[in-house]
């Protein structure tokens, strides 16, 4: 008898996310997991001595003060913009690290999805359209997106993004607002740091926890299951 193996939920989701974004022209980008402080913080408008740096608990490396385990996939933004000129449409799914005690809803390592779109006339309206397109394809059904004011140092204005899947009795996520990610208009300092003229170009960035998307979509009750190699979990999918 032939036993077929199982693809891990995370890589499966990443492939699916990439397929959705590839259809609207977003390129899959990547960057190192052990990152320069320069890309993870400084060039993203997160100054060394500012409370905004405390928003993420960071792993530092012994004897290398210029390096961190990247705390977010946003680190790839600047790298990508230095190598690619606008118009830019980019996603970057990847592993990130936070120095936080682990429990059923927190892991010290998890996956994030970064997105970036830069051109001459990109607004929050484009961001809303892109995120509605993505959420509809990813969660299924007609999805509405709304914004709430928030703060991330590398965007201005910054927002929290909620989605609502049109009411559908087969989908227990439907018919209510659910927070799915943080986002905003790329801060002019970030564009400038990456060699893009903010008086000419503007655009948006978003960052979502892929683990959180998995929890929502598949009803997972403990995200640590995704990282312990247990086939009783893996082989369910």
């Amino acid at each position: 008898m032939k036993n077929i193996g199982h693809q891990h939920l995370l890589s499966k989701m990443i492939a699916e996310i990439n397929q959705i974004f590839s259809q609207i022209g977003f390129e899959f980008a990547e960057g190192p997991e052990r990152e320069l402080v320069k890309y993870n913080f400084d060039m993203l408008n997160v100054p060394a001595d500012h409370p905004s740096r405390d928003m993420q608990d960071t792993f530092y490396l012994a004897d290398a003060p210029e390096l961190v385990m990247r705390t977010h996939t946003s680190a790839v933004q600047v790298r990508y913009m230095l190598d690619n000129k606008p118009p830019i449409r980019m996603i970057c799914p990847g592993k990130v690290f936070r120095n936080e005690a682990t429990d059923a809803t927190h892991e010290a390592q998890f996956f994030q999805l970064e997105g970036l779109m830069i051109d001459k006339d990109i607004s929050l309206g484009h961001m809303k359209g892109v995120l509605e397109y993505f959420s509809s394809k990813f969660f299924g059904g007609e999805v509405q997106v709304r914004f709430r004011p928030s703060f991330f140092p590398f965007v201005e204005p910054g927002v929290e993004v909620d989605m609502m899947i049109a009411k559908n009795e087969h989908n227990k996520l439907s018919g209510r607002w659910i927070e799915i990610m943080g986002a905003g208009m790329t801060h002019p300092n970030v564009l400038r740091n990456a060699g893009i003229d903010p008086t000419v170009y503007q655009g948006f960035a978003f960052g979502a926890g892929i683990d959180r998307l998995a929890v929502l979509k598949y009803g997972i009750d403990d995200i640590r299951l995704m990282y312990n190699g247990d086939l009783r979990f893996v082989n369910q999918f």
Partner: protein
Amino acid sequence: MKISHNWLQTFFDQQIPNPAELEDLLTFHSSEIEEVVKVGNDTVIDVKVLPDKSAWLMSHRGMAKEISVITGIPMAHDIFKTKPVLSPVLDKININLKTANCDYYASALINGITVGPSPAWLVERITALGQRSINNVVDATNYIMFELGQPLHAFDADKLATENNQYKIGVRNANEDEEIITLTGENFKLSSADMVVVDAVTDSPIAIAGIKGGQRATVDLNTKNILLESAHFERKTIRHTAKNIKLRTDASVRFENGISVGLAPLSLPVVLELIIKIAGGELIGYGKAGLAEVKRDNVAVTTAKINSVLGLNLTNEIVLSILKKFDYSYKLEGDNFTVTPPWERDDLFLAEDLIEEVGRIYGMEHVASIKPKLEKVSKVNVRQYYAEKIRRTLIDLGFSEVFTSSFRSKDKVKIKNALASDKGYLRSRLHDNIIEAITKNIPHRDLLGLTTIKIFEIGTVFDEESESFQLALGVRTGTTYKAKVDDELLKTAQHEIENTLGLNITWFNTDEGVSEFSLDDILSKLPMPLQYDEVVKTATINYQPFSIYPSISRDIAFWVSSDTESAKVVSLLSETAGNLCVRVTLFDTFMKEDKTSLAFRLVFQSKERTLDGSEVDSLMTKVYDAVAKAGWEGR
């Protein structure tokens, strides 16, 4: 930060929205709300104030202003408008700033106070926020901090030395290893990067500047005369010290978030008026040093730019009406606004900062979505493309994919601030994680319906200089590694991957049925793909929590007529075995003349407890009976 609804109301004559409505308004126009809790006849709203708003929103006055802007209800009582001033200036207090990191320091002398319990209304306010009431003087300083955002401190004047009938207060950098005991009794050793407030007559520290008062001049029940401090300390120094000595206080948080220096002179008359009201005494006078003036640079933005960023169609009039609610001073020429930020706001420098203010007050819900253009991406990510190809190959061979930790207990690259001692290093290879995952899964083979554990991981590994994207795969058939069986399976998989990619791979760390290679090393040798392969969308599956209790397996084999469908047999077996039977696997079939032999493994497991062998045996008796009844002959 906790905000009392009753307290907020004191800034207004008109009724403000009820807590539930406020929660909604703040959520969509200002800040995230963590929690809304009823406390007595008050409601406390816990607001998550993010760093961009922390300089001016971490107070009831700041929040009242925000509510006034959002709702349009005017503030009836605003100390920022009435601007009380102090007199007389006095030669009884000499203040000497010996560090550039304190730009303003004021101290007022009140004589003849009576320290005692706070009045009921004050206790109610303070305790509603979850604070402890200490005494009327300390409570008053805390109250004004929560009201206006300015940290304040009272010293017992009689515990300070005087010189020529004059108090001498100094602010200076701490000496290396200078020690101070705080008013709650903890001892801290400071360095020259820290700042202290000193009794300058004896040069002895009486407070860790901007963070916590010292024990030496603590206000207690015998205190008669006090020196009240209202000062401004530079944010970076406070942040550095609070972090270094691991002491974050309500005061330090406000300073490190950059409250305006303009708050200090404003808050002193307010707090001393309150103290005289509730503790008696008389203001003798005050002294000050430094400057509390704030100069704000103009910020310019056009209505066109606002609309282009927010995706809205606002008119000059709408923008104007929002700026007016903030009380910003502004000039309008054409559609070009020039705004002078108010002294308390340290977060308005760029056009984008103003755009955010306009957007959030107008309401982000008005942003209309613009559909993205369908247009296939032109550049394919090689790593993702080939990783997916390899995954499909391995999955067809029965391998399942795992993701494991990037941390190891010992390896090449050390983490400076590890979470735990067994997570102190970055993995330099996947090999060890694969072995561990195999070992973990071996006991569950029957439960998984597998005879062999076959797994792989694709992930990043690290050495001192670089990181590499690698793949490792591992197989194990028995409870321990058996070269003869496992190596064969491993080799087949290695060949299949090489066939898929069309090249030879350099495998390494090949040991105990596990082998590894670097994708990064081969990607450049592979043809550039033109487009991604279609992802097969699987039906949405809901994860099922699995039992933590061990399982028990039993085998049964019997003859059936060759036209018997095995699916029917499986359903009879699992129905008979009952709910505790979680899996029935057909593991052997052979034919002899017109009969077929079927061998099944039944796996039993409970979600609530460890099963007893005899319990499973009695279930199996039922299964044997059912098999016999069906006319199937046991083997």
